[in-house]
Structure formats: C-alpha cells, structure tokens
C-alpha cells in the first residue's frame, strides 16, 4: 500500500478525534511531561517519537488512564472528558496495546480478550460460550490460522499474542488505539502481519497513536510524526514532507526541519 493512498482519506479540516491540550505530569520534582499538546484525526496514524525518557510513554499513559495529569485537558470529538482510571479510558473507547504487559500470561486468549469486560449470564456466571464464540470470530478475521483457544497466552508466539491484544480493540469497537512498541518483540513476518492489521484498523476510521523506537516502522505506517524531547513537544510534521534524517534531527537535537508544521499547533 502506498503512503499516498493512506494519507488522502484523512480529513484534517474536521474536528480531531482526540486532543490532549497542555498536558503536564510531574513525578516528585521531575517534569516528565511539560505542557504538551497533541491531537489525532479519525483514520490517522500518529507516530509518537522520542528518546527513552522523552515523556512519550508518560503522556500516553495519561490517555489510557494509568497516570493522572497535573494539568491539561483531554477532548474527544469536541467534548471534554475526564480520564481518571483505566476504566474511564475504556469507557471512552480508548484501547491500549502495550509492548509486554497487556496480557495475563496464565489465561487463554478468550479470557484476555474479555478481561475486565466479561459477558455474564443472568445467573451472574461467565457466559463462556458466547465469549469463546466472539473470540473465535474476531480471531478468525485477524489471524485465520489461530487455533490455540484453550492454551494460556504464554504458550503463544509473539505475533499471536499481539493479535490477541489487537482482537480486543476490534471486538470492543475502539475508536482510539494506543500502541506502545507493537512490533518490538516480533520477527519480520509477524511484524508484517501487525502492519497489515494497523492499516486495516486505520481504514475503519480508528485513530492510532503509535509509540515506537523504530523509525522505519513509523515511516511505514504513520501519517504524522510527533516528536518529544525532555518532556517537551518538539513538534509535528507530515511524514510525506520529511526525510528520516530530518525526523532523527528532531529526536536527537530537538530541531524542527524547515517544513510546514503539522496539524498539532493549529489545534489550540
């Protein structure tokens, strides 16, 4: 799929799917995130880049409800929301796929897919038939060869585990997806499967924040790159306007390239 085809579908003049405005987070005396604003449009993949400790994970954990921000606002579809817990994020249809801590290894695919949102019968007991049925349907779409429905996910390959995590997003109809290093632990073939999945989700109008160290990953998938350094926003650029070296310059030196700054700044 060419980059042009992936970018044309996004309507930047519409209201953004999500806006994080002037977010600050401190741990003790350290400002991990300092007055950062980012946004995301429907069907868009925004690559969130920066060194370790740049604050990108902290910023995104505010969105997924794992951390509280000290100041700042979150707007979804033009409406201000409060996210104080993981539950709040899920209720706003924000799903997060973490690099390694998204799944309970001892549980099977079905239990993980529905974790925290189990279907229950009138008796209050788990409706395992319905959940397994839904799991088989979703996994059939994402990963048709998958058969280990009753094995603990620790027995699955990296790609299979990642597809279980993604199945969660698809089943619960996420509109905002946060992916933290989704391919870091995967082989080449599995990475390709995940990339295809991301493109498919994007086509369905889901907005995706992609956190990655791998600049190739980001250039392959992202419509925009948003770069952070030392807790501050360096800026956002359209991927098609810049070279990898220019983005590396943003990450390492915190220097904006000589191109039009992307949608972020106009949002405020």
């Amino acid at each position, binding site marked *: 799929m060419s980059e042009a085809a992936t970018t044309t579908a996004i309507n930047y003049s519409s209201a953004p799917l999500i806006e994080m405005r002037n977010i600050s987070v401190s741990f003790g005396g350290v400002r991990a995130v300092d007055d950062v604003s980012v946004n995301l449009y429907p069907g868009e993949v925004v690559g969130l880049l920066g060194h370790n400790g740049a604050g990108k994970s902290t910023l995104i954990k505010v969105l997924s409800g794992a951390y509280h921000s000290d100041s700042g606002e979150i707007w979804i579809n033009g409406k201000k929301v409060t996210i104080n817990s993981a539950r709040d994020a*899920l209720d706003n249809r924000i799903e*997060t796929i973490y690099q390694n801590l998204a799944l*309970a*290894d001892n549980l099977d695919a079905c239990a993980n897919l529905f*974790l925290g949102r189990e279907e*229950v019968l009138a008796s*209050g007991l*788990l409706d395992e*038939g319905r959940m*397994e049925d839904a799991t088989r349907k979703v996994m059939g779409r994402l990963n048709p060869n998958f058969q280990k429905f009753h094995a603990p996910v620790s027995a699955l390959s990296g790609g299979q585990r990642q597809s279980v995590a993604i199945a969660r997003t698809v089943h619960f109809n996420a509109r905002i997806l946060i992916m933290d290093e989704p391919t870091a632990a995967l082989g080449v073939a599995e990475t390709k499967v995940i990339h295809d999945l991301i493109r498919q989700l994007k086509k369905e109008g889901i907005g995706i924040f992609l956190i990655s160290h791998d600049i190739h990953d980001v250039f392959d998938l992202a419509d925009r790159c948003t770069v952070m350094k030392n807790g501050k926003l360096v800026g956002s650029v359209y991927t098609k306007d810049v070279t990898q070296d220019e983005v590396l310059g943003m990450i390492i030196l915190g220097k904006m390239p000589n191109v039009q700054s992307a949608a972020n700044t106009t949002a405020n």
Partner: protein
Amino acid sequence: MGAIKRFISRLELDPRLFGMIGALVLIWVAFDIASDGLFLTPRNLYNLSLQTASVAIMAIGMVMIIVTRQIDLSAGSVLGVLGMLMAVMQSRILPDSLGGWIWPVTVVFGIACGLIIGGFHGWLIGYLGIPAFVVTLGGLLVWRGAAWWVTTGQTVSPLDQNFELLGGGVYGTLGAQVGSWSSWLVGLIAVAALVMGALRSRRKRIAYGFPVRPIWAESVVTVIQCVVVLAFVAVMQAYEMPGIAAKRLYEARGLTVPDGGIVIPEGIPIPILIVLGLVIIFTVLLTRSRFGRYVYAIGGNPEAANLAGINNKRMIFWVFVVMGLLTAISAVVASARLQSADNGLGTGDELRVIASTVIGGTSLMGGIGTIPGAILGAVVIQSLQSGMTLLGADSSLQNIATGAVLVIAVFLDMQYQRRRRK
C-alpha cells in the same frame, strides 16, 4: 508408552492432577503393604477424611491467596482464636435455654469474627499496601496471643452436643443423623449432576460449533468421576458405627435394641459434606465467575489486570475476607472434632495448609492453582502423617517426610513445567 500417552492426551485431563492422583495411589498402596492391610480399611479412610477436613477447608482459601501472589501465615492462629471465641460463646455465654439454637448462633458468630479478621488483614494488605507476608506474620503472633487471652489459657470443654456433630464424631455423619440410605442418595445426586453437567456443556459446545472431545473420551472421564464418587460413598458406608454407640443412639430415640445387635453404616461424615459443598461453591466461583477470573488475572499479571480496569486492591481485600470466612468454618470443624478448644488449637496449620496448596500444584509465583488440586494436596499430606502414625513412626519423622515430599513435589512440578515450555 506412546499409546498410553496418546490415550491420556485425548482425554484432555490436566496431567498435573493426573500425576498427583497417581502419587496418592502409590502412597496409599505402599502404606497398606507396610501396615499389613491396615491402611486401606474403611475405618482408617474414614478417619483420614475427618483429619483432612479442617486443613482442606483452609486450603480452598489459600489457593485464592497464593494465586493472587499473596500469602497467609496467620491461618492457624486465626483458627485458634476463632475456635476459642466460639467455644466460650457456646459454653459460657449463650444460655442453655437456647437449646438447638446454640450451635447456629455460635457458627454465625464465629463466621462474623472470621470475616472481620479477614477483612482487617485484607485492608492492611490491599489498601494500605503492607506486604501480606508481614501482615500475616504479625497475625500469626497476634492471634495466637489473642487465643490465649480469651480464657487466659484455660481449655474450654465440653462443647455443645449439636455443635460437636459438625466435627464428625461417631454421631456426626449422614448415616447417624439422617438414615442409612442418605449417603447413597447424596452419591447418586452427585453422579446425576456429573453426567448432566458433562452432557450440557457438550451440547452447548456443539450448538456453538466448537470442537468437542470424542464421545468415548468424554464418557471415560465422566465414568471415572462417577466411580470415584460411588467408591467414596461405599467406603464410608462400609464403616459401621461401634456397637455401644449404636445402642445408645437407639435408646436415645426410644427404639428397642434388636437381639442380634445393630448395624448402622456411618456414611458420609458431616465435615466432609461441608468440604464438598465448599469445594463446589468455590470452584464455581473461581472458574466461572468474574471474581475468579480476576483472581487469576491479578496473579498472572497485576499490571495488565489493572489496565483492564480491575481494582486490584479491592480484589485482594475480598480474597482475604474469603480466607477469613473459610478459616472460621475450618475452626468450627476442628474444634468440634476435638470436642474442646484450647489456645493451641490450629498451631502449625498454616504450614500444612500452604504445603497442601503447593503440593496441589499452586504456584507461589501466582496465577496458577486449582481447588481440587489443593484438596488432593491436603489428602497427600494427611495420608503421610496418618500412615506413618499407623506404622508407629514418631512425629519428628513425620515432619521430615512431609517436608521432603513438599520439596520433591515442587521440584517435579518445575521439571514438568520446564519440559512443557520447550
């Protein structure tokens, strides 16, 4: 060998449970041979089941605690203080005029105290974040001391007669209390439930179009379960009430004693009925409810559970509340069996309970463990102890054997896990 392995794998049984049952059978046969046939007698197996009951009940709760990566070192001491409180309640506080109400009031009081103690532990561990090891190590000392304070060290005896039935003495059985046929009725109900359960879940899987076990494999598993149930009832029925006790029972009921003597099968002891009821309730809770699902999720990956919207603190609180409940029921059974309570009641039980749970396949790393496994573990430990008593080995040797079996069991389990992962 390959054929057997294939056969077992087609049955889709838990191989660890399978191994544990094998080990138990081995222990039983070895003791039976060494004791010239004294071990596998109805009388010994009946006593074995009674001796296991108290530890088995607490092991149910310990599974949940260890699966959530916690520990409870205070179970024996809490059992002690609850036993003392209930003993004082029934024999010194409640008036005799309450009659048949004494035992239920006492049990409810004991359970309420157990819930409070469990809730207190759960609050300290879950909400204040004090490590469970520390809280319950403190509890081990505090509650043992508290047990002494209840009567400043005096033993309370005798207990209420009805209360004592809950410990399963000669009269505390279905045979003595309900009728000689009642244990068979319970056995048949269990068999019917097993068969219907298997049929229902199979029909459901077929309705959804999920793969199912071949019908012969399903039948083999169900038949084995039914045979175990009926064999257990048969053994308990084969143990007959001692002649004098039977005579007294007849006289108390105003019946004339026939010339040829009386044969009353004891049947299932009441504490075993309690254990079985609790095993069913808590197995359903642990495997079929949200609560159980979250217990395993927290043990498998606390951070993932939290991110999925599960309130880990509240879950840990409730797990300790459940442990308090089960410890109270265990205290009822233990003090009723001994027909007295003293401030040493339950000493060392926490270690037997933890050992049972771990031998029964619960991982101290959390996330893995089953209630039936822990019950089997409790039976293994009690079998070792009572088998060695039967052979005249003294208690120091019993401790050595129990300790060694614990370490060997965990080692073998680790080897199995490692091989499976490869």
